[in-house]
């Protein structure tokens, strides 16, 4: 199967500049530097690269919304979102650990395309090992004269999931509480310190060296319509071989599960969370669904950041929904009332059901509560609060009813 990002992951010293360069490293950057910035963006547009941090927005189109330097003079920034915190996602951690130069090369390509003289890698504070790996790789790149057109600096977060949302990330970088901003303006127009800023995910930027080296068309050809290239799934849960698996965009759920060895021995598939715990689960009937940002929507869920959690028959939907809603309640930033209150109430109802004290009204109440949060907050965390409880209720009503003494009535 075609690999782009993990192609050389059997090379033990891939994290070192010398090895990376021997394996075509920094050829994409060299190519980009011979091109005009607009030509680089055109190549990325042609590639159908989508934002792999979860939103799936076409990367070239995002770049296209940055005002040109002659219209809006002054600094502009590229910021790497390495704040991976969605439960189920760990691919950025592995990508940075194994191939830091792949990310740095992509970042330097983006900086050239966007005219950014300063770039930042914002990394979650818990990834200190990866911070150290990046520090060494940046030092190597500086010493090799690869960063003449743009500097790279690092900044660490302090444990808040919401910092992974682009505008909240920028607030964190500005030394504030990680409260998402209400767009417009979008960061590409007014981002870090009010300057045009592109925030791209680790995996997205890591794709750029291939796109520049081999061409946007070659990248687009690997994926599915409007979804270029590959995607790296983080697979965990009730699966034989948890780990990261890179597959072409549009691969079936069945194929990804097969890569990870399938459901653990002696057990039966219950459902699969495809993109991180915020995403509603896929069911057995969805095994032949093609996984890309567009086709997955047919099953009422999202590709997210590819954090795939496999659940077998031992997982109870009430417990699973509770675990996820508890996480969201803890990580709600508190700015929007429907999310701040709705998440806590959702957890309270689920805990009542779990303790055996549930009442039949709890089921319609969870649904109504979900409806009252979704679409009513600044960022998508609120949508998730409303989406998760309803998704498990809808797919596994029996799990809820059997734990509510008079549940069969509802």
């Amino acid at each position, binding site marked *: 199967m075609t690999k782009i990002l993990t192609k050389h992951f059997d090379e033990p010293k891939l994290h070192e500049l010398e090895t990376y360069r021997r394996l075509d490293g920094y050829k994409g950057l060299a190519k980009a530097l011979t091109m005009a910035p607009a030509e680089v963006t055109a190549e990325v547009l042609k590639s159908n690269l989508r934002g792999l941090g979860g939103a799936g927005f076409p990367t070239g189109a995002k770049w296209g919304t940055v005002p040109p330097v002659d219209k809006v003079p002054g600094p502009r920034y590229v910021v790497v979102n390495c704040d991976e915190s969605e439960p*189920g996602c*760990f691919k950025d951690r592995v990508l940075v650990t194994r191939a830091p130069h792949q990310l740095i090369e992509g970042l330097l390509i983006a900086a050239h395309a966007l005219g950014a003289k300063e770039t930042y890698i914002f990394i979650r*504070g*818990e990834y200190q090992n990866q911070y150290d790996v990046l520090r060494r790789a940046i030092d190597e790149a500086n010493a090799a004269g690869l960063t003449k057109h743009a500097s790279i600096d690092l900044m660490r977060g*302090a444990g*808040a999931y919401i910092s992974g949302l682009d505008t909240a990330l920028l607030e*964190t970088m500005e030394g504030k509480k990680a409260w998402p901003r209400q767009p417009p303006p979008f960061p590409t127009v007014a981002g870090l310190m009010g300057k045009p800023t592109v925030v791209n995910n680790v995996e997205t930027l890591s794709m750029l060296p291939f796109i520049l080296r081999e061409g946007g068309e070659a990248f687009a050809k690997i994926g599915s319509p409007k979804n270029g290239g590959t995607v790296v799934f983080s697979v965990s*849960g*009730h699966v034989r071989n948890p780990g990261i698996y890179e597959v072409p965009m549009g691969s079936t759920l069945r194929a990804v599960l097969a890569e990870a060895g399938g459901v653990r021995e002696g057990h039966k598939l219950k459902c699969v969370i495809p993109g991180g715990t915020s995403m509603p689960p896929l069911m057995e009937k969805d095994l032949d669904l093609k996984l890309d940002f567009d086709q997955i929507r047919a099953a009422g869920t999202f590709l997210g950041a590819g954090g795939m959690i496999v659940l077998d028959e031992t997982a109870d939907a009430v417990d699973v929904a509770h675990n*996820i809603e508890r996480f969201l309640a803890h990580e709600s930033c508190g700015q929007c009332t429907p999310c701040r209150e709705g998440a806590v109430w959702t957890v309270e109802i689920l805990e009542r059901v779990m303790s055996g004290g549930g009442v039949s009204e709890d089921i319609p109440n969870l649904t109504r509560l979900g409806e009252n949060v979704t679409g009513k907050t600044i960022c998508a965390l609120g949508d998730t609060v409303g989406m998760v409880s309803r998704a498990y209720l809808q797919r596994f009503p029996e799990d809820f009813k059997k734990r509510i003494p008079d549940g069969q009535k509802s």
Partner: protein
Amino acid sequence: MSATATKSKTPFTPEQEKELVAWTKRYPHSNMGLVEALRAVQDWHRRITEADAARVAEIFGLPFNRVWGVATFFPSFTQWQTGRKRVGLCHGLSCWLAGSDAAEKALRETLGVPEKTCTADGEFSWEAMECLGACEQAPALLVNDRLIGRADAAAIAALKKGKK
């Protein structure tokens, strides 16, 4: 308390003062160094007190409540004293599926303290943490900056004995 701490009463050593000042100069705007500066304070004092925040506010030229708001927002910053080994147990979905409840029981019993409480010798504290990004090694522990995967009772016993 208000931002009345004076330089003579700084809770930081001269070297630490210097490092905090350096964070005001690292990035294009001084405020951009604030979260990193507070990370340093948390490392040094194993918590952030109001006196700490007041001095950081002075160094950054910000109101005390502006800095205290940030210090009390982020989960990495604590007002309670953490152990020299601050143990975080991931209880995200994959870690919970793999037995984070059992790991929590082992932590409580092996370290002999409730969550967010320092052992009498100051060596350990433990707390539940949100997803540590190590779902393939579930359940995961973070001991200061070090990740420990597959944290069962035996791994936690080894951690207590200083063998892990």
